[in-house]
């Protein structure tokens, strides 16, 4: 009886081949990546002049896209580490989804930051001449660390699953079988091995929390260490972290829905998961809203002269449509949807997740560019085009290409590896049965 159930779980969770929909999806993503790559080649030959960035708006959507990627990658640490250490078990089926989002997002964060460089050919100077006092060097260090810890947190729990997949040789193609044996042929399901990986995962779960806080705090310091109105804020670290957990959880809601309906995982990602994840998102949205109130209300109360122009630009001026759109879609609407029990059913929760993710992308834009267009001294002695910023097709293509690339990594990962941990699901079901008896 028990064996049959186990067999059923394995059959349900083994990676599945792409159907027609899957193939179309992959083709679209690849096409977007290719367009982005062409745009980047264009940028490489002509220089950053192909972007709309100029001397005042010297950072544009590349940087806001970078902040977005770093932000969304934080969810890996939240779901795998924070919930694991607090002994929350309902999130087990979501750990791998969160962790692959983290890995692919942090990879593309690194790529997009190279895209923003004027001289990517001199990247090695960071290692040759790097100076520890620059927050950029801190960012390079913590992002690299975070990447490797995330990879390990993805890999260790995968080991028992690799053994299971090696058993089902008929379900895998030749190269995938080779990949599985390369990654996990040493795994024998021995108790000592479990002991070692459990310990390793525990250590990594503890270390990843400060590292995760560091990556986004340091990213916020790229702005907060300057004097500019809108960035010169002691609130920035906490403001960024809370926003990051929000967008990551929104992303997990979306991914849960897509995997659930596409791979037919209704038994594994249940209403209960959406209900609990929905509550998490409401809490995080409220938290982020709280930091937003701090971030904008306090300077708006004083209206210091350099801040005034910036804040008026956001509240009622040039940037008001995007500002209010971002606030509404990333926080207010998701709260309204997810606060009701009906709103936490899969489909409405999925919509709320999408709103969070889109709103958060524009929120990052609002954080980066308006400040640069409100310098201390008025804009002067530059061509008229330097006074405004609207991204060019190259910038859109590269940013969309990078987002498509991140989705592609997640898609291929789910094609090759079980997106819901098989071994852990079996163990938990067994424990559950055991508890019942």
């Amino acid at each position, binding site marked *: 009886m028990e064996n049959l159930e186990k067999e059923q779980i394995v059959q349900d969770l083994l990676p599945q081949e792409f159907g027609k929909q899957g193939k179309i999806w992959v083709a679209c993503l690849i096409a977007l990546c290719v367009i982005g790559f062409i745009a980047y080649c264009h940028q490489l030959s002509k*220089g*950053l002049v192909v972007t709309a960035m100029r001397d005042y708006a*010297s950072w544009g959507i590349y940087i806001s896209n970078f902040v977005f990627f770093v932000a969304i990658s934080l969810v890996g640490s939240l779901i795998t580490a924070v919930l694991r250490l607090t002994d929350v078990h309902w999130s087990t089926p979501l750990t791998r989804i969160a962790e692959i989002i983290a890995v692919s997002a942090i990879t593309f964060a690194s790529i997009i930051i190279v895209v923003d460089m004027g*001289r*990517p050919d*001199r990247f090695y100077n960071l290692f040759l001449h790097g100076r520890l006092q620059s927050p950029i060097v801190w960012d390079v260090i913590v992002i690299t660390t975070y990447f490797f810890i995330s990879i390990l947190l993805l890999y260790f729990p995968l080991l028992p699953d690799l053994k299971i997949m090696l058993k089902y040789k008929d379900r895998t193609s030749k190269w995938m079988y080779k990949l599985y044996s390369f990654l996990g042929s040493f795994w024998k399901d021995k108790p000592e091995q479990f002991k070692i990986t459990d310990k390793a995962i525990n250590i990594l779960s503890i270390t990843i929390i400060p590292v995760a806080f560091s990556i986004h705090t340091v990213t916020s310091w790229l702005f907060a260490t300057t004097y500019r109105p809108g960035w010169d804020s002691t609130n920035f670290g906490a403001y960024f972290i809370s926003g990051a957990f929000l967008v990551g959880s929104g992303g997990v809601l979306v991914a849960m829905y897509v995997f659930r309906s596409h791979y037919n995982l209704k038994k594994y990602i249940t209403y209960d998961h959406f209900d609990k994840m929905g509550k998490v998102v409401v809490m995080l949205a409220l938290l982020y809203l709280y930091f937003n109130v701090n971030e904008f209300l306090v300077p708006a109360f004083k209206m210091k002269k350099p801040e005034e122009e910036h804040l008026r630009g956001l509240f009622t001026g040039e940037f008001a449509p995007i500002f209010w759109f971002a606030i509404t879609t990333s926080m207010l609407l998701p709260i309204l949807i997810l606060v009701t029990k009906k709103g936490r059913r899969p489909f409405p929760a999925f919509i709320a997740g999408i709103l969070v993710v889109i709103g958060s992308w524009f929120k990052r834009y609002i954080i980066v560019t308006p400040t640069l267009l409100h310098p201390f001294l008025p804009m*002067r*002695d*530059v*061509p008229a085009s330097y006074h405004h910023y609207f991204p060019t097709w190259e910038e859109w293509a590269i940013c969309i290409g990078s987002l498509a690339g991140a989705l592609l990594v997640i898609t291929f990962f789910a094609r090759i590896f079980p997106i819901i941990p098989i071994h852990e699901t079996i163990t938990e079901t067994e424990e559950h049965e055991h508890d019942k008896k």
Partner: protein
Amino acid sequence: MEMNEKSTSRREFLTAGLLAGGLAVVAGCSSKKSPFDPEAGDLVAASGEKVKLLSVDGEIIEVDKAFLKPVPDLPQVSNEAARIGIPGKKFAMVIDLSRCKSLKKCQTACNHMHHIHPGQNWIKVYPMQDADHTSPYWQPTTCMHCDEPPCVKVCPVDATFKRQDGIVLIDSDRCIGCRFCMAACPYSTRVFNWEEPGLTKEIADKPYSCETSVPQKKGTVGKCDFCPDMVRKGSLPHCVAACPNGVFFFGDMLEDSVTNGSETFRFSDLIKDKAGYRLMEDLGTKPSVYYLPPVNRNFPFEKHDEEDSTENKSKSKS
């Protein structure tokens, strides 16, 4: 090796000091064939007008003016020496706002000498009005060469650096183009080479020098450099020399003197008597550029028609 370079740069500096005062010195006094012999070089007839010069041996000699030949430019210092700066100096600038009428000759000269990409400017001239009912005035800005430079703090690769003589420079051969320094600078003084700067081949092929900031390179940051190459030669920065109204004063704070070419003041007296100040003192950046308030003005404030022109249309208005 490094010691060697240091001593070379000192020697070069001493030579430059010798040249200071604008005198041209004749080279090679000790060669067997008299360099003053008309046959030796270009055929020049003696003008009869004598000029007193200090020979390298320290004697005062008299030479016919017609035989004076300008010495070729001193060789540029190496970029390692350029990072150290000129020992025993602390450069500063004083900008007298009561003299500025936004002719922008400073800007033209600077753009021309540094081969800046058309449309961009290292020197900007702002129409300023501090409050609704206060008087407007023109405020030229250069790089402030801060003593606590926020740009240098954030640079991840030490491409922009602070020298012991107070000047902040950029090594365009090292800059990775992250533009963090531009975000960090509160004075909006830095510009970026978004595309190839459009130089002639002759200029573009020169090796980059931190002291001349030439040639500008695609994908790197540029800014006002206080013209240390001119200073080494004993000349004034291009903007100072180009201003017909004597707005800019340049000098060494340790010597306590600043000059605009025709007038020289004791720096501390000038700042004390005219209530000199610095921009955004509250940020703690400690600029090396001082401003004298726009009082007892030489010109009324007249706003030109130009709206952020890319070229200097002000020429016609003078």
